[in-house]
């Protein structure tokens, strides 16, 4: 079990990390970056897997099933659109 204050430390450090990572980003990357961070919270998928994994009643299973579908959609969809956007960033120096 992650104890109360340890959790608080994790939250605080993670919040600073997120802030710092984005702090000096050029405007041209705002949309891809939003998409990329949208993909990263797709990690919710593993949470839904655990929730469905220990579901006991059919109702819990039904909710868990929907949650995993949604979580997988977040992760996979987030990846595909971000990748498609970033694929396009090229410099004129490379392809003349």
């Amino acid at each position, binding site marked *: 079990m992650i104890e109360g204050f340890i959790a608080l430390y994790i939250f605080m450090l993670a919040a600073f990390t997120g802030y710092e990572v*984005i702090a000096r980003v050029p405007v041209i990357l705002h*949309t891809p970056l939003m998409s990329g961070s949208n993909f990263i919270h797709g990690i*919710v998928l*593993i949470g*839904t897997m655990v929730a469905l994994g220990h579901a006991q009643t059919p109702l819990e299973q039904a909710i868990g099933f929907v949650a995993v*579908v949604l979580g997988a959609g977040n992760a996979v969809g*987030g990846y595909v659109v971000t990748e498609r956007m970033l694929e396009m960033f090229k410099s004129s*120096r490379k392809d003349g």
Partner: protein
Amino acid sequence: MGILLDVAYFTAAVLFILGLKQMASPVTARRGIVWAGAGMVLATAVTFFHPEVEGLTNYLLIFLAIGLGGGLAWWSGKKVAMTDMPQMIALYNGMGGGAAAGIGVIALMQAQDMSLLIQGIAAVGVLIGAVAFSGSLVAFAKLQGIMQKTMRFSGQQWFNLLIFAITLGLGLMLAFAGNEVSGAALLAFVLLALAFGVLMTLPIGGADMPVVISLYNALTGLAVGFKGLVLDNPALMIAGIVVGAAGTLLTQLMARAMNRSLASVLFSGFGDTGSAQSGEATGSMKPIDAADVGVMMAFADKVIVIPGYGMAVAQAQHKVWELCQLLIERGVKVRFAIHPVAGRMPGHMNVLLAEAGVPYDLIQDLDEINQEFETTDVALVIGANDVVNPVARTDPSSPIYGMPILNADKARNVIVVKRGQGAGFSGIENALFFLDQTRMLYGDGQSVAAELIQAVKSL
């Protein structure tokens, strides 16, 4: 098995942060998403061995659900046009919020000797996740054009506040319910949270939608982080909170680029109040032929192209770039000027131009290029409107007053490519169109660009 899970989750968290860091620079961005993707695959794979995942039925359900959700998302993500990216992000983000809410609902249903703090956080996570879910779906529907732009009634904010207060009260009840969580209260809580997400998003105008999507993105991150605490899973906590913080900052940056505060986006009407403004622009709009414009640009020293969403809708970016290449061959200095909110989202236009093959070093943002308009021969405004409207500098009564704009009006000649004589997205008349040095080139962006190419080629 426990140590394997810990190592894998730790690695995934590191990969996420490094990936996000790399995505913040155009040179390394490609690698960034691949790294983050590797982290996701690793974390998902080891979760099949999580000690709490048990029962054959549950395993089958998990496989089926991942196949279904992942498959649909893969298919839709590959298929969607670049112009529709913002609403797809909203949709996938909403799914994440829904997933987080689902975890919380199950956790509350199974509540057994949960500490008050964790039970409260589970309830808060359900609330945030559900609001992000329904709010994102409304944002998707609006951008996709399924839903009418705005919906308002008198006393709406008080009504929303009331709903929120009731939802919060129910949430508190659930947090203090201990092992006796009532199913009916939980159901009401979820439904009210969903309703609040819808109500909160309905009155927000289309122009502000990107800021709202970014806000929901941050909220989903927060909800995921809270679920990590409930499930005792550090990977979820770290990834969720990192996104929550990054998303909050990104929301602020976007709001600032539009010269709006987050509060005014959420609680005031914009986008439909603007149309009440009377167009006081004087003078007339002067049309011009494509052939003349072709000559003007071919013999110019310096041309700045100002693309807007209209160009993207007409799918004209490929033709425009072809035109610019012709001009560059003739020795004309061509640059693209991008307003922070060109397109539907900050950076959206850059993506669309990148898709057409425009190198990103020809693309410049507002601060870089604004001084250069005075020495520019031709400013070609194609599909943009509000972002070049000089009233933002001059008329304090205008709803867009104070918004930073591209100073196209300072250029020696301004060519505006436009489908018709209507006003822009905000419904405000554009004073630029009436200036002496401005000429209007009417027509669909794509066909106009094709005509211009012909005109330049035939010289």
